[in-house]
């Protein structure tokens, strides 16, 4: 339902107003990031100049400095590994289940689904406390594996939900005719359903990847300096005792969010599609 606008003159005025409002809002929402991006290209003297500099000759010394600390690359790798593994695990485990949820009634289905809902909704700290104690007794803390398990608490429910909705929208006729042709359900699922479900899986992975990439709490408690992820590493630039290091904070912060901004462009379509497909069913 798009807004239909009246006479020509009011239409022109209305358009201008809408554009002006949106431009202002975009500026407002992007300004903090743009300003910090600017800071990351300033020298220490420029950063603390009074009044703040709006035009300056940019320097990349902060980035050189951040990359010079070898463990920044390691943290990048760690983040990639743990978020990737969590998403992979959730897809492998969750997609078949989502299919079953969408197509077959079985005993305990609504209970399981409710449990998934709770799992997605519950405060992360509530799982983290017991998880931490259990993992430390099992010798799992500070391993990447423990973080992967922790991330699965939010990525698994997300995968199941997105994919269930997706499977429900897929027409059942194709599999059914395959069944009639004598294919068993596993074969039909593998050869017919899964290829059709690819776009859904892509959307689910991107959304999960973004959540996992952005996590701070789990990684802060469950990692050490060998397994720490980017947000945790980045925080060490902020809270230390070597004088305020705005160069390190800003440059590392920008590097941390660069991949998610790319995700967000990739996910644009899926983001909105996911939203509407979910809500339309109401």
């Amino acid at each position: 339902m798009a807004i239909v606008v009246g006479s020509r003159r009011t239409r022109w005025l209305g358009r201008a107003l809408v554009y002006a409002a949106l431009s202002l809002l975009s500026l407002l929402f992007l300004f903090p990031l743009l300003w910090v991006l600017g800071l990351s290209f300033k020298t220490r003297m420029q950063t603390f100049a009074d009044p703040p500099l709006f035009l300056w000759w940019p320097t990349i010394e902060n980035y050189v400095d951040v990359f010079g600390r070898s463990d920044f690359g390691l943290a990048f790798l760690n983040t990639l590994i743990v978020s990737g593994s969590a998403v992979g695990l959730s897809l492998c485990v969750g997609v078949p289940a989502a299919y079953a949820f969408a197509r077959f009634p079985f005993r305990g289905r609504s209970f399981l689904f409710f449990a998934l809902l709770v799992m997605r909704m519950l405060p992360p700290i509530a799982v983290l406390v017991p998880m931490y104690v259990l993992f430390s007794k099992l010798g799992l803390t500070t391993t990447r594996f423990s973080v992967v398990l922790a991330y699965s608490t939010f990525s698994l429910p997300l995968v199941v939900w997105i994919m269930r909705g997706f499977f429900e929208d897929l027409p059942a006729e194709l599999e059914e005719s395959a069944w009639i042709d004598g294919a068993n359900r596993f074969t039909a699922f593998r050869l017919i359903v899964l290829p059709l479900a690819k776009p859904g899986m892509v959307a689910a992975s991107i959304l999960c990847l973004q959540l996992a990439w952005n996590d701070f709490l789990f990684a802060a408690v469950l990692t050490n300096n060998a397994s720490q992820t980017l947000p945790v590493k980045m925080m060490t630039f902020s809270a230390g005792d070597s004088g305020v290091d705005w160069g390190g904070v800003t440059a590392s912060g920008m590097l941390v969010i660069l991949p998610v901004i790319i995700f967000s462009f990739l996910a644009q379509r899926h983001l909105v599609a996911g939203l509407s497909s979910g809500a339309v069913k109401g």
Partner: protein
Amino acid sequence: MADASTILAKPPLAATAPARRRPLALDRYFVTLTVLPTFVVMVAIFGLPLLFSLYLSFTGWSPNQALLGGAFVGFDNYADLFADPVFIGSIGITFGYTTAAVSAQLAAGLGIALLLNVDLPYMRAFRTALVVPMMITPIVGALCWKLLLDPSHGVVNYWLGQKIIWLGQPDTAMLAVWLVNVWQSTPYVALILLAGLRSLPSEPREAAAIDGASRWQMFLHITLPLLKPYLLVALLLRTIFEFRAFDNIYAMTGGGPANATMVLSMFTYLASFVRFDFALGAAASWMMLLMSMLICLFFIAVIRRRDAN
């Protein structure tokens, strides 16, 4: 996002039972085999930890004891928790913060959604730009704001021409973490509502336009009621997510000054990982869990009631 589907979706269609002429032996186990892995993972990373934390909350467990070595202490941990003025205070702060954050997000999100819904060229570019704060790492967003709000070198104070100590005074500290939260989460609400606006039928509006209704009347009496389910979903999701707020508060104030921003997550974090009182932390996290379940059930009941009408 997908969360929306759970609440609003009708139960899946009863299996479109196909003509099963030759039920293959393996097929009988299809559901079991597909659901079992999810079930096992859920038990391992969700069921067991929660049960264990329930156990912890009834014991005097400390980290140098064996896993199940704590002595049973009944409700002592819960009693201690409710005797702690900081915990009681944090309940109020959490609810206040959640209410303030969610209502601001809904108001701003609705405005943005209405603007983005206007059918004009280049709207996608605006949408892309506005979505960025919600996608980026929360802790980075919070640290960015911390620099912006720096008392002596922050650009916000420079523009205001004042030296406000944003994060060092109780009221302004709360205002600052609230502001960061609204900045980060409004796009989420806007996207849900935009999707809602897009899917609304246009007939009622056209009919109203013919009847000569003003634009404001149309919004109030047609668009808003039709949008209600989407508003409810956004309200539920944001309430649940703000209720557990942690990252921005951890990065900006650590719960201070004078406990002004001590939300429940922060309290539980400090109890568990600074005081090492895991028993108390477990009790606090179960209280959080119960509260968020209650919020969830309340909203689901509201949505169900609306559906029934």
